[in-house]
């Protein structure tokens, strides 16, 4: 009898050891860190406008000059016309700005502005900041793009 108990005890001991090791390995695995807010639609800093920002052709292609569309609506949902838009940005983790100087080149109607000359030369976290001045006032918005 005693010998069976010894087997069971030994088995239990090894099982506990195994569980412990497996748990330790899982705990040591890198935890996913929460990234920046990458939503493509948001309110501007002072909530003057609702802005959305999308690649004009739907996909982001690294290393290519691309045009994006910035769509501006008032808080009430009316399209923002005649806005003056400045563009800046960079990569916060690399302390450098954008590799190009994108500009608002065309107004396409219905609050949509073409932002041309955007190029993401590397993967990682990019930021694009827009300064927006229109009849309702001036405001700004930052979009995060993670490649």
């Amino acid at each position, binding site marked *: 009898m005693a010998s069976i108990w010894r*087997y069971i005890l030994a088995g239990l001991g*090894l099982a506990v050891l195994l569980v412990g090791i497996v748990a330790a390995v899982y705990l040591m695995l890198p935890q996913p860190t929460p990234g920046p807010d990458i939503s493509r639609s948001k309110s501007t800093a002072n909530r003057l406008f609702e802005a959305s920002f999308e690649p004009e052709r739907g996909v982001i292609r690294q290393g290519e000059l691309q045009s994006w569309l910035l769509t501006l609506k008032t808080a009430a949902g009316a399209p923002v016309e005649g806005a003056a838009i400045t563009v800046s940005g960079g990569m916060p983790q690399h302390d*450098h700005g954008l590799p190009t100087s994108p*500009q608002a080149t065309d107004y396409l109607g219905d609050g949509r502005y073409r932002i041309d000359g955007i190029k993401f030369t590397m993967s990682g976290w990019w930021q694009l900041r827009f300064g927006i001045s229109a009849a309702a006032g001036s405001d700004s918005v930052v979009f995060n793009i993670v490649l």
Partner: protein
Amino acid sequence: MRRLTSVACLLALAALALLGGCGEPQFSDAEKKTIASLALNTLPSLKADTTNQYADMPAAAALGSTLFFDAGMSRDGTVSCSTCHKIERQFQDDLPQAVGVGHTNRRTMPLAGVARNPWFFWDGRRDSLWAQALTPLENPLEQAGNRAAFAHYMQKRFGERYERIFGPLPDLSNVPANASPLGSDAEKAAWNSMSAAQQDDVNLVYANIGKAIAAFERSIEPQQTRFDRFAIDLATGAKPEADAAFSAEEILGLKLFIGKANCVTCHNGPRFTDNAFHNTGVPPVDELPLDRGRVDAVTQVQADPFNCLGKFRDGDESACRELRFMVKDGPQIARAYKTPSLRGAADRPPYMHAGQFETLDEVVAHYSKAPLAVEGVSEVHPLDLSERERAALVAFLRTLSD
């Protein structure tokens, strides 16, 4: 007791097997994705160059090839494009700074894949391959010629070939033998004595010389290497065999390249370059003139009459977005230089824009240490790589040459 031992052994084996299953595979999925993005088979086919209507015309490429190797394309008949861009040496010259008619202040760049660049020279002072090709022709330290002399030379040596490609040559009978807006005082005076129509005629022949040379250079493309064979096997799940198999040191180097050492941040895509300009704190060479990199190039490319927005461009202005949206100022362009491709780099020391480093070990040591820039701010941060890690990076870089 024996049964106890065997049960314990079995359990221990099971534990080992389980642990082995949880252990790190050779490459994570993210690493595999990055490695695949660097392989040559992801290089897209070469896009048309709408600014050069002769870019893909075989006769133009043939003439361009003749001109590329013709020492007659220089002031004293001794220097051609191929003097520095040596065909048997990856189209570069192994010198810290190029030597043409005089001694320049920059390292000759190799030409594989050159037609894919948005910007040319280390600092991007030209915005098309054909505008680039014109620049050494008139640089007093390189081919040291002048555009009026080149136009006469084309008529005399290659008149028939020229006209079959580009149409009738203009009347050059009243054009001075030597004249250029960039030449000696006498050449400038001669240029200024010409009518605007004559200047346009000469500039057009000159632009066409660049377009022919560019048509030839479009055929110079990067070749498959050991790394590419390894990457294809990794992507398809095949076991790399023969020289496509990487040593443990090469695998460590590749992991560092795409991971901790951050090389892939700028050296990305199948050409291992982001085609952008960066200040990486590379020290200046004492005896050379002041070199501010991209800062001065921005002014030069805007002033170039052969740039994309100038009248010698074919096609429409939509091809000029790189020039239109370039960064013109700000601290980030001080002493910023173009990220060079790393394909074939192991076989072509010395390194950097003025040949500052004699070996890849020195290059890797520079990036590991990340010294401050003499002007502007270096984008590189210290890595403190061990000797073993630095050697592994160099071993990996060699797989881009084999």
